[in-house]
């Protein structure tokens, strides 16, 4: 047990992220893959939590209904606090994002499972959707006044063009950081756990490796929620910029 096969340790920390067809065959755009399966499970989880959990419509909530109400109140309050009353129109979109990310992240913590949010393809689409929606919304709601987002009127006049360039760059970097933050965190955590698991094959260090896995797993539980929270709150902040572009 001391030595892994092939006379040396084989670390394949990225193997877990491979997209595989569920029923074999080439991966085409319509093929049911492991990512499709786990995305489907997150839909099921959301339905169980929010729809089945609230089916009794009890005045005094049951345990599952409490969780559903908690999730609802958490995001509702976030949207209301950051975007104001007019932001509540977009509450279902933001709730959709949050519930998908949080469910995908937590389902991905099940050993041997697959985490859709560890892929840039997924997070880039999510972030771009937010970015494009927010940009279009900003121009539709404010017209050219949306550009005042880049013109920091509270700064000295001489500094404003410089700040405008910085603001513009940071605006376009938003979707990049928005997407890479989520996928990077999830991927890194899973990969590190896998590396620890590779070390666990060596008897001498396996207790340390198992402890490491346990600690990383705890951290990952935290990260799963925090990253979903961060993604959602940033979406709210961007949405606020679109609704009220003036600094």
């Amino acid at each position, binding site marked *: 047990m001391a030595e892994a096969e092939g006379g040396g340790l084989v670390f394949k920390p990225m193997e877990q992220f491979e997209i595989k067809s569920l029923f074999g065959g080439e991966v085409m755009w319509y093929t049911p893959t492991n990512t499709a399966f786990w995305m489907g499970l997150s839909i099921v989880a959301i339905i169980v939590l929010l729809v089945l959990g609230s089916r009794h419509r009890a005045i005094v909530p049951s345990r599952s209904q409490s969780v559903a109400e908690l999730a609802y109140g958490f995001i509702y309050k976030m949207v209301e606090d950051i975007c104001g009353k007019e932001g509540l129109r977009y509450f279902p979109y933001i709730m959709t994002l949050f519930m998908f990310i949080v469910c995908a992240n937590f389902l991905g913590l099940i050993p041997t499972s697959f985490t859709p949010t560890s892929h840039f*393809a997924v997070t880039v689409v999510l972030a771009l959707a937010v970015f494009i929606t927010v940009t279009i919304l900003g121009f539709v709601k404010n017209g050219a006044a949306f550009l005042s987002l880049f013109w920091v009127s509270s700064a000295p006049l001489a500094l404003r063009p410089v700040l405008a360039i910085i603001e513009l760059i940071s605006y376009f970097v938003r979707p990049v950081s928005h997407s890479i933050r989520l996928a990077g965190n999830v991927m890194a955590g899973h990969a590190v756990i896998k590396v620890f698991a590779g070390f666990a094959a060596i008897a001498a260090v396996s207790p340390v490796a198992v402890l490491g896995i346990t600690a990383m797993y705890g951290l990952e539980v935290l990260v799963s929620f925090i990253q979903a929270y961060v993604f959602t709150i940033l979406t709210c902040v961007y949405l606020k910029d679109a609704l009220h572009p003036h600094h």
Partner: protein
Amino acid sequence: MATETHSADAASSGGMPQLDFSTWGNQIFWLVLTLIVIYFVLSRVALPRIAAILAERQGTITSDLAAAEDLKAKAKEAEAAYDKALVDARAEAHRIVAEAKAEIQDDLDAAIAKADAEIAAKSAESEKAIADIRAGAMEAVKDVATETAQEIVSAMGGKADGKAITAAVDARLKG
């Protein structure tokens, strides 16, 4: 599955499956589908329902509080009414007691007056009876004295003069 893995490995020889752009179309397709499903589930079923539950709870709490406020006011009213009834009852009791006392006093006064009158009448009668007895006794003493004096005079051999003896007895009794 093993051969599948192998070919995928070969495809992503860079190492990161995330950067294997041949799978992006697949992921994006399923992601968009998932998001649409979630969005419809949330916006059609889950969110309105939870919002309704929360609104209903808020309504229930508000109306319950109002009802509690109402009941509190009613309880206060009832307490005030009770207090008033108590005070009234007490006053009534006082009045009845005073009345009864006055009545009894009246009866008592009348009875005492009557008894006094009776006593006065009885004592007057008795006084009269005593006076009569005393007068009778005087008369009897006079008679006895006169008779005795006559007897003594005759025994001494004299002739008893009735008028003189009576006058002498009278004079003696007066003196």
